């Protein structure tokens, strides 16, 4: 059992960055000598999303796509997506690499390693990254975290239970806060240092109470989880969500953001709603959105006074509407 302060030792808190030194310095000394990557840049590190993600199939038992699509956004950033034939939620999960640590955000909606080998895929990614960058995979600490406390984002966590040099987030609100070292949720913004690459993390409740937003200072990707994504943003708690949106707007006012990225895609490229649970989205819209999309959604949100489903042109804002009630109609009505 590690004491509390040691558990947080990978964090350099914005307020008091006092805890880091001892163990990390020791580790740095024993680490195999390799050129440390300099993640500091004045602009966003370039990267690209795929033109089309793997998006299910009409017949699921005939799906021969990998359970997990791995897309390297750039040399130090992978984005994973679960196959729709393995879970209709098909969440996206970024994998951020630093010199010392790897951050996995979200673990999909399927538990068993025999059903989908999330851990093996992440191991492969780490191995290939280390091969490219001359470091030892065993030295890389893996942080297994989730964007928010919903099963379609943490179901695969147990696959990492016995993985060496790994920390994973407990499945409670308190453990989530403790993992990030937050004492003043949701306002407090903490900085996670992956080893030269900083991830800014702060609370963004609204879809669910236990949710965070993540900003990667290297690629400038703002990862907004299920609180804001291209699909049906189920807003369970309006005022906290609205406040979280305000925090996001304040953040993008002060920081350069290359892409706003959520956990799912539930809309076609023409803006049509893919109903909840569907397992084939042949014409789905890209996962990434722009800062303007975020600002526009916030402007629309300012006009919302009643529960209901509102379309901003990019996303559906489902204000306190029931989880599986969509705008879908009976096509045979006459």
């Amino acid at each position: 059992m590690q004491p509390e302060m040691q558990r947080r030792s990978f964090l350099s808190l914005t307020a008091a960055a006092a805890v880091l030194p001892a163990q990390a310095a020791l580790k740095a000394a024993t680490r195999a000598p390799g050129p440390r990557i300099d993640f500091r840049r004045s602009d966003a590190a370039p990267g690209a999303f795929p033109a089309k993600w793997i998006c299910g199939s009409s017949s699921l038992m005939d799906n021969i796509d990998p359970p997990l699509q791995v897309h390297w956004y750039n040399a130090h950033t992978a984005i994973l997506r679960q196959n729709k034939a393995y879970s209709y939620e098909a969440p996206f999960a970024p994998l951020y690499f630093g010199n010392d640590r790897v951050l996995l955000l979200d673990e999909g909606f399927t538990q068993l390693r025999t059903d989908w080998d999330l851990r093996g895929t992440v191991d492969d990614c780490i191995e290939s990254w280390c091969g490219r960058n001359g470091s030892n995979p065993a030295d890389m600490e893996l942080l297994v975290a989730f964007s928010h406390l919903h099963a379609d984002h943490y179901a695969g966590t147990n696959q990492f239970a016995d993985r060496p040099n790994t920390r994973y987030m407990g499945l409670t609100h308190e453990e989530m806060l403790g993992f990030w070292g937050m004492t003043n949720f949701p306002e407090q913004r903490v900085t996670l240092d992956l080893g030269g690459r900083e991830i800014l993390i702060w609370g963004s409740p609204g879809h669910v109470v236990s949710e965070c937003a993540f900003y990667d200072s290297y690629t400038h990707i703002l990862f907004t989880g299920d609180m804001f994504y291209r699909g049906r943003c189920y807003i369970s708690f309006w005022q906290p969500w609205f406040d979280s949106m305000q925090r996001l707007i304040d953040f993008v006012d002060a920081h350069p953001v290359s892409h706003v990225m959520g956990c799912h895609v539930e809309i076609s490229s023409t803006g049509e709603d893919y109903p909840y649970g569907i397992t084939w989205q042949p014409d789905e819209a890209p996962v990434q959105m722009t800062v303007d999309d975020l600002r526009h959604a916030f402007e629309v949100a300012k006009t919302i006074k009643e529960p209901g489903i509102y379309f901003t042109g990019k996303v559906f804002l489902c204000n306190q509407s029931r989880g599986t009630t969509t705008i879908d109609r009976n096509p045979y009505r006459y």
Partner: protein
Amino acid sequence: MPISNAPSLIPYNPNLNGNPASATGSAYPNGNPALGYNRPGVRNTDSAVPLHASGPVVHDYASDGPAPGNLALRWIYGSNVAAKNRDPRIQVIQYNEDSFILRQNVCTHWEAPFSYLLFGNERALLIDTGATASARHYPLRETVDAIMTRWGQARRRPNLPLTVALTSGEDIAQNQGLVQFADRPGTTLQPKPLEVMKRFHKLSAWPAGTGKIDLGGRVVEVVPTPGTHKDGISLYDPYTGFLFTGDFFYPGKIQISNDKDFVDSLERLIEFRDGHPVKWVMGGHIEMMFVPGKAYPRFATYKPYERLLQMDPALLDEGLTYARAVAGKSLMLIRPNFILLNDVSPDQRTTVWPESVPNIDPPRPF
């Protein structure tokens, strides 16, 4: 050891020969081995086929009550991880020697529709064709051909003509497999457009009146039942006593497309039921769970707690009562064996739980 055809002197023994309280209500669920085939006055045939027929077998489909059959099974129910499903693409159940029930694997299409294949002396009838057009994913024609070939060999009736009927021509959960039969020789396809379909079944007084499909000794009746689809029909097979209702009435979330038509059709169907011995109402899907009033959501590919397919014909009365209750309203109404959705989203949920229905949480597989 030679097999004697003489009536056995061994008295009936329920431990050896079957349970008198069996689902078929028969003392000999698998047939009394002491009796010959199709003796005079036979109620129905447990074994219609002579071992070595020299010519086309003529089967007597007349019976005093519904012909027995076996449906004591659990349907294949998909997989938690649909991509890993390795079940057959079509589950084929031989209900009795001349009646087959086919179900599409839920991991090839979430609608998992049922199709029915009925044989008569002169013709076979396929009711509904599934939700997938691709023969590679859903080899319906191949399966039907195989069943018909084997049946034809046993009856000495090769190249039996086939009629393909649809409980609704517009329902994409039931009409997709039709294309697989497009070039099949000796095959009559029910046309899809409503007006042409009416002529095909000679339903000039639509929605009143009934049509007939004569399979040779087995005359299937066609009852117009618009309401969930404007071209909806139900079919009644007097041999098994099955009323095939497709989307119109089934253990699931019944999406009413026109409430007036739905009520009118239910009234006509009940009138029809009262004039004909109906054993079970056989729908086109199952969405209800094995606990009352709970249903699987759309797109579910893992349904381990499904309700049975067959419905008691008395449920039509309950359906009519509550169809009248939802008529004219935007409402979701839960009943133990079905759910009515009128003018609401197919994913609609409700907090209104019906009185006097036990509210049981089904086990969650996840």
